[in-house]
């Protein structure tokens, strides 16, 4: 593949990877618990985009059966990602619930301050 | 009675006894009776087995396979028979002694003490009768675990630290060195059984054979080869009946028993004598004998002196076996019995002195022979046995070892034997002399008499045994001869 194809033809992969790295970085580098969850969400979303984008078939229509259409895009990734989105939502909900309870218990949602509060007791 | 049934009884009686002893917790007299009954029962069974084994029978009992192809199995051969005889007889004597000692010193946790003893003797029987290396390893570890509460009996800081050294060295050597050696043997040879002539010949290369010898010798921590001997003096924190058990009956004897058994039945005397890289064992054992004797010479604490004497005497057995001549192997086997009687007498005496006079150092023993004639008399006999002088059985075993060394022209061994005899005399005879011929210091609390009766009885039995075996060595010699296949 030549350069143009590699960069512009595979743009969906580039975007997915970019988002993946952004999300991953946010998770690792953030000290704020909610920001970590945000990063996690971005990370997960990149994966969703990756999956869905590979389902598209060039020249294929939406996967709704009609006698006149011959090529369809692949519906399976959509199904998989719906499931994954649900999982993601549950994860975020749970994560945020934890953050609420942590705030109640510690008074802060900054990781360093939580560590400091735990250290002497550890 | 079928001989296999006898064998199974020998293996279950001590354990059953332990349960009965545990159940007699609140009733000391009943508990002590249980101990004695169990010990006597075990000895009777072992004697019955001995007559069969001398007649040529080799009872075999196989339980299940723990690992595919390797079973928990038992087979009695002459060396194991001798070990079991010594152990079970001395358990009776040790129990009598313990009753006197534990009550005389008002020790706590006596039930735990007697229960652990019974379990340790059960493990000892298992070691003595194992048919293969796996069973041996199982009971070897059980012996370590069951003697730990005995070593740490007093429960104070010193006992805990002593226990740590004890367990640390024994487990490190067994799990760290012996176990890999066993697995390697299993993998290379395909069997772990004990067979006359050994199982390694033709199956492993010479380098591996040498490596295995090294691993097994240092993996058997209970044989106290230097430098892994440290657990022995560390275990002196235990009450004296435990030291007597550890240093005469169960633990150390298990160690050297395993050494001799491995040399004769796993490696094979013939195989080893052709192995060029096996000579180090003789030199290391010889060095251990001498170095330990020197340390004993410089120890004032009586039990410490006896501990290092034990280290030295154990290496006598190892060195004798390492000479790799049938006669010296016989000497090694007989010495297992000889040293047992002698050393237990010495430890009994040490405990007796502690119980009656509360003295622990050699320098405090001036003139004590006047007040404790039975104790010091027994001590003298035990000392003579260590030195190897007639009319004690120590002479007989030394005689055989010397014969073997001469036969094999092992000059180093002969030198070591001569030197160590001198050293033994140097650290034992002065004690006897001081006890009988020096005047006791006047202003100390010397108004004590002999030790309690139970202790004196035990002392006399073992000291007497040391002399009796000199005049009637038939049984140990016959068993030893049978082991090396010289018939008769």
């Amino acid at each position, binding site marked *: 593949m030549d350069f143009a194809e590699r960069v512009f033809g595979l743009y969906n992969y580039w975007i997915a990877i970019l988002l*993946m790295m952004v999300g*991953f970085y946010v*998770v690792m580098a953030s000290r704020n*618990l909610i920001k*970590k*969850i945000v990063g*996690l969400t971005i*990370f*997960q979303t990149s*994966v969703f985009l*990756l*999956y869905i984008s*590979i389902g598209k078939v060039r020249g294929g229509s939406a996967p709704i059966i009609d006698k006149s259409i011959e090529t369809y895009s692949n519906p399976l*990734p959509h199904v*998989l990602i719906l*499931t*994954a989105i649900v*999982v993601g939502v*549950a*994860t975020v909900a*749970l*994560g945020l619930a*934890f*953050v609420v*309870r*942590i705030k109640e*218990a*510690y008074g802060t949602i900054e990781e360093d301050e*939580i560590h400091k509060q*735990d250290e002497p007791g550890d | 009675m079928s001989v296999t049934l006898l064998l199974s009884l020998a293996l279950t009686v001590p354990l059953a006894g332990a349960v009965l002893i545990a159940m007699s917790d609140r009733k000391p007299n009943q508990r002590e009776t249980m101990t004695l009954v169990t010990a006597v029962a075990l000895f009777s069974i072992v004697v019955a087995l001995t007559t069969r084994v001398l007649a040529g029978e080799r009872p075999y009992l196989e339980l*299940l*396979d*723990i*690992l*595919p192809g390797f079973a*928990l199995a038992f087979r009695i051969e002459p060396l194991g028979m001798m070990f079991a005889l010594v152990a079970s007889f001395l358990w009776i004597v040790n129990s009598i002694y313990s009753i006197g000692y534990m009550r005389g010193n008002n020790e706590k946790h006596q039930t735990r003490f007697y229960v652990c003893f019974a379990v340790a003797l059960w493990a000892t029987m298992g070691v003595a009768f194992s048919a293969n290396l*796996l069973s041996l*390893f*199982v009971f070897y*570890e*059980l012996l370590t*675990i069951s003697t730990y509460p005995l070593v*740490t009996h007093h*429960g104070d800081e010193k*006992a*805990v630290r002593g226990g*740590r050294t004890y*367990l*640390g060295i024994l*487990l*490190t050597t067994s*799990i*760290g060195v012996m*176990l*890999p050696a066993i*697995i*390697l043997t*299993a*993998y290379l040879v395909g069997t772990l059984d004990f067979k006359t002539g050994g199982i390694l010949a033709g199956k492993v290369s010479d380098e591996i054979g040498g490596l295995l010898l090294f691993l097994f010798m240092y993996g058997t921590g209970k044989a106290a080869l230097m430098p892994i001997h440290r657990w022995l003096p560390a275990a002196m924190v235990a009450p004296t009946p435990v030291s007597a058990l550890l240093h005469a009956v169960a633990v150390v004897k298990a160690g050297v028993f395993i050494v001799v058994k491995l040399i004769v039945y796993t490696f094979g005397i013939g195989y080893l004598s052709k192995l060029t890289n096996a000579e180090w064992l003789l030199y290391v054992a010889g060095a251990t004998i001498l170095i330990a004797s020197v340390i004993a010479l410089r120890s004032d604490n009586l039990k410490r002196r006896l501990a290092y004497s034990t280290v030295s005497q154990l290496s006598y057995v190892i060195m004798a076996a390492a000479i790799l001549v049938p006669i010296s192997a016989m000497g090694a086997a007989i010495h297992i019995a000889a040293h047992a009687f002698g050393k237990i007498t010495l430890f009994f005496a040490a405990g007796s002195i502690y119980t009656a006079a509360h003295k622990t150092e050699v320098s405090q023993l001036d003139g004590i022979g006047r007040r404790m004639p039975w104790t010091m008399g027994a001590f003298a006999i035990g000392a003579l046995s260590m030195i190897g002088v007639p009319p004690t059985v120590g002479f007989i075993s030394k005689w055989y070892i010397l014969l073997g060394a001469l036969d094999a022209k092992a000059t180093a061994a002969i030198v070591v034997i001569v030197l160590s005899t001198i050293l033994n005399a140097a650290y034992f005879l002065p004690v006897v002399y001081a006890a009988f011929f020096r005047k006791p210091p006047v202003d100390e609390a010397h108004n004590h008499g002999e030790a309690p009766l139970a202790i004196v009885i035990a002392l006399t039995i073992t000291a007497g045994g040391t002399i009796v075996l000199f005049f009637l060595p038939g049984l140990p010699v016959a068993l030893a001869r049978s082991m090396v296949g010289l018939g008769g």
Partner: protein
Amino acid sequence: MIDAHLPALQIVLPLVAAPLCVVLRDARAAWALTLLISWAALAIAIMLLVQVLATGPITYELGNWLAPWGIEFRIDGVNAFILVVVSAIAAIVVPYAYASVKAEIEEERIYLFYCMYLLTLTGLLGIVITGDAFNIFVFLEISSLSTYVLVSLGRDRRAMTAAYQYLIMGTIGATFILIGIGLLYMMTGTLNLADLAKRVPPIAESRTVLAAFGFITVGTSLKLALFPLHQWLPNAYAYAPSTVSAFLAGTATKVSLYILIRFIFTVFGASFAFGTLPLDIVLPVLAVLAMFVASTVAIFQQDIKRMLAYSSIAQIGYMILGISFASVTGVAAGLLHIFNHALMKGGLFLALGCVMLRLGSVQIEDMRGLGKRMPVTMAAFVVGALSLIGIPLTAGFISKWYLVLAALEKGQWYFAVLIVLSSLLAVIYMWRVIEAVYFRPVPNTDAARNAREAPLGMLVPMWVLIGANIYFGIETSGSLGVARRAAAMLLGAGS
């Protein structure tokens, strides 16, 4: 008739029972339902194992949709074995949970605990039983999410942060696995494991598949707490309720290990993973690091639950080492240790739960002299410790033997030495506790002086697990036999 649907029932029963717990609301009723269902699940798992050993792998199509388009459950020697391990631990822990949970979680929330417990069980069993890659991800997330909740129910507020950290790291791990599965799907067009096994090897060298393998390996390593991705485990095990620690220690990481095994041996093949790719170097190195670093850290812990958590990380190192030998003995050793470790660690954590109940703490300082006040519990702890160290006649000894044998068979004697040396570290950290418990004087606090033995409902399950250590250390033909068959099948089928 029911026989034919056992595989489905294995999942459906706990799945349906979970919301029922919420409906029931009452703590006792929820517990009773959980007890019933977990024992039923165990019965089903045993029946499935027996069937697989007798007649070979079982295939079950969900909804009668044919594979590879439909989702199928595929049970062979390996996952039948793991099914039994997981359901057995779950079943033994529930009777114990009655008293333990009452003491550690508020009454009004206990029914939620049991709901999550059943959901976790569903998820874990589902991961093991399914033959579809994406299904693995779904069940993985089901079990993970409910596990996060279980961990967060601990008394200490640090349980919250531990659960949060576990959530973040666990989700990253699961997402990595998802990426890997997606890449594989991209290249082969199928999600069925058996189908993947056929289609992947021809294209295994392509960059996409290599990337997929990488993602899956890292993702599962995060979930199974392979060093250095183990950071979440110590806190999670230490601050979770005692029952949860006991349950998780025997199941959660093992199931993730199963996922790794399944992908390495069935989908990609041993020769690819260990020959073409450098896993035969990477995994053993990480395993050895786990064994030594984790054991050493364990020695210095004051919180004994934490100490056992680090010990678990080390034990997982053993399992990974066994697997990475890629020989029948090695993989069998790893599989066997999954079983034996569940017995050991489960029993040890249950013992600690008894201590927590009576003492309110599991700090080594507070546990001094406990041997006199809680003799039965501490005796169980000692036996568990002996098994962990690898004393003969215990299950741990058998695992150690096989691991060393596997190393020797491959001529890698240095691993044999390392395995044995790290066992000695276990002696140090376990004996530290035993010394404190038996030889130190009782501290002068009310809790210490009033401590008495735990209730029967907790002692019995604990001794069942500990007793199993001894049973399976002597009667080994069952566990070893199954492990060896499973290993042979894994190595024969793949590669």
